[in-house]
């Protein structure tokens, strides 16, 4: 057993989920090599090497790896592949883009969106938007094939740091392909934290259609230092970006506090918030399913209740 863990990073910072992803790798067992591929990303390598259980860190710096282009990164991974039995990536847009490409190139055995590790060949993953969990075991006939896995970091506790950082080895990162060319990117226009790393998330749903915009939610998020999420209904209505969507077809989140504002609680949305520690809900329909899953729920009109709640919160926090 020899694990290669693919580290995600952006703007020269290691993704916050890395210590959680590492926990899943450690539960599988065996030495863990972390690959940091990019351009000028030494700081990312330093950050990843600090965590307990990292045996070695491979730093592959080259302009061709700068934007995480799948064709290039996959070519690099294929060069490293013979040395490893397990390839693990986060179940994020980054990992979901890269790992299946690698897996097919290797005709590897693949399992994605893992939320639990029973042993080195038995895993738990959600199906039907998390409305069921299935436990799958690798059939003995296929143990000789490499395993490619994506892991949902929110399902694992973070690994602590180690006193002696893992050694960093620089390798050739050059892997160019003419299949695809990166053009440009633009960040979302917001200063708030990202959905999947935020401690507090507030999300709006179909109830916001009445207002025609998300301003009320955005203001509340600003006040709470929260990330802004949305339901599929709100995304379909053009009130929020699809990257803000929480649920079956969007992001699965696990914040400390989740506030559902004007959200009825469709099965596919609830699938995305089940891991939230405390759920607050405000909805004017007393029969909305969100009330049954929320820890604290209020039946009220959102447009009057939310400003009231924020005002009261200000008063309480001043005390």
């Amino acid at each position, binding site marked *: 057993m020899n694990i290669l863990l693919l580290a995600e990073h*952006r703007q020269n910072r290691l993704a916050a989920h890395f210590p959680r992803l590492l926990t899943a790798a450690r539960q599988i067992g065996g030495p863990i090599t972390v690959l940091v591929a990019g351009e000028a990303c030494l700081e990312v390598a330093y950050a990843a090497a600090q965590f307990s259980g990292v045996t070695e860190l491979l730093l592959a710096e080259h302009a061709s790896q700068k934007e995480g*282009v*799948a*064709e290039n990164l996959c070519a690099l991974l294929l060069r490293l592949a013979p040395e490893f039995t397990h390839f693990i990536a986060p179940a*994020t*847009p980054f990992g*979901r*883009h*890269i790992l*299946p*490409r*690698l*897996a*097919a190139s290797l005709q590897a055995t*693949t399992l*994605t*969106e893992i939320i639990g590790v029973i042993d080195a060949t038995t895993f738990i993953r959600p*199906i*039907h*938007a998390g*409305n*069921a*969990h*299935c*436990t*799958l*075991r*690798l*059939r003995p*006939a296929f143990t000789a094939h490499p395993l490619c896995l*994506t892991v949902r970091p929110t399902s694992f506790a973070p690994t602590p740091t180690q006193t002696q950082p893992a050694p960093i080895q620089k390798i050739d990162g050059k892997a160019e*392909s*003419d*299949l*695809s*060319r*990166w*053009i*440009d*990117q*633009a960040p*979302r226009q917001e200063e708030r934290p990202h959905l999947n790393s935020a401690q*507090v998330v507030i999300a709006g749903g179909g109830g916001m259609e009445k207002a025609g915009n998300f301003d009320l939610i955005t203001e509340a998020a600003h006040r*709470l230092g929260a990330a802004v999420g949305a339901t599929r209904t709100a995304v379909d209505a053009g009130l929020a970006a*699809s990257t803000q969507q929480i649920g079956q*077809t969007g992001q699965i989140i696990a914040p400390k506090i989740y506030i559902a504002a004007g959200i009825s609680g469709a*099965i*596919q949305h609830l699938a995305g918030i*089940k891991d939230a520690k405390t*759920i607050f809900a*405000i909805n004017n329909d007393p029969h909305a399913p969100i*009330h049954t*899953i929320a820890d*604290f729920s*209020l039946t009220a009109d959102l447009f009057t*209740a939310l400003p*009231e*709640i*924020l005002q009261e*919160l200000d008063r309480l926090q001043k005390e």
Partner: protein
Amino acid sequence: MKILVPLKQVPDPAAPLRIQGDGLGIDLQGVGTLLNPFDAIALEAAVRLREAGISTEVVVVSVGPESWLDTLRTALALGADRALLVETNAPLLEPLPIANCLKKICTLEQPRLVLAGRQSIDSDHIQTGPMLAALLGWGQATFANHIELSSSALEIIVTRDIEEGWERVALRLPAVITVDLRLNEPRYASLPNILQARKKPLQRLLAADLGVDLTPRWEMINITAPPCRPPGLRVKNGQELAQRLAEKLAAI
């Protein structure tokens, strides 16, 4: 330009999910089916490209049982020109064998573009599109929310959702693209189109004849309902909710 759209039939997600008594499967008896919503978006994008004169033919393909013919007919009613069913009753079909089958179909059909849904909403693997791209040695763009293509183009420009916003990539054709929610809003099939679809070609072939190994590599140990949350508290007013929220915020 020929476009290939792989499709999957899925159980209606609005129906409550029932786990089989033996805990080894989902009880789908009496549950309606539909075209996987992401695949419907991919099909819509392909049909719009044909209507714009950029594509000449839209071919839909499924790897699944005979009962999926209904969904392929729906796709024909939604504007596909031709349908293929790669028939198999293999249980627990995994994404890699499906991608291997689709590769064979691409070799036969020679599409310039494959447009696929980002994931199916039942098994939620999120694998098949990029797997197919790898097997064909083509470029890939996943989670597309906008595509720009001209009929003479050698490349396609794709805007894709990423964690921090969006990015644009240019892919050399042929290529594989998986689509996200925001790309378009699929149309409904009109009655005349449903009737007309019956005349469109629908070809069946056997997965076994493609020479692809369909053996599942994973064994299902059990399926369980996710753990339930303890019952919550209904608060009386906004002040009480604010009070509880303040307590939880202070604990972070």
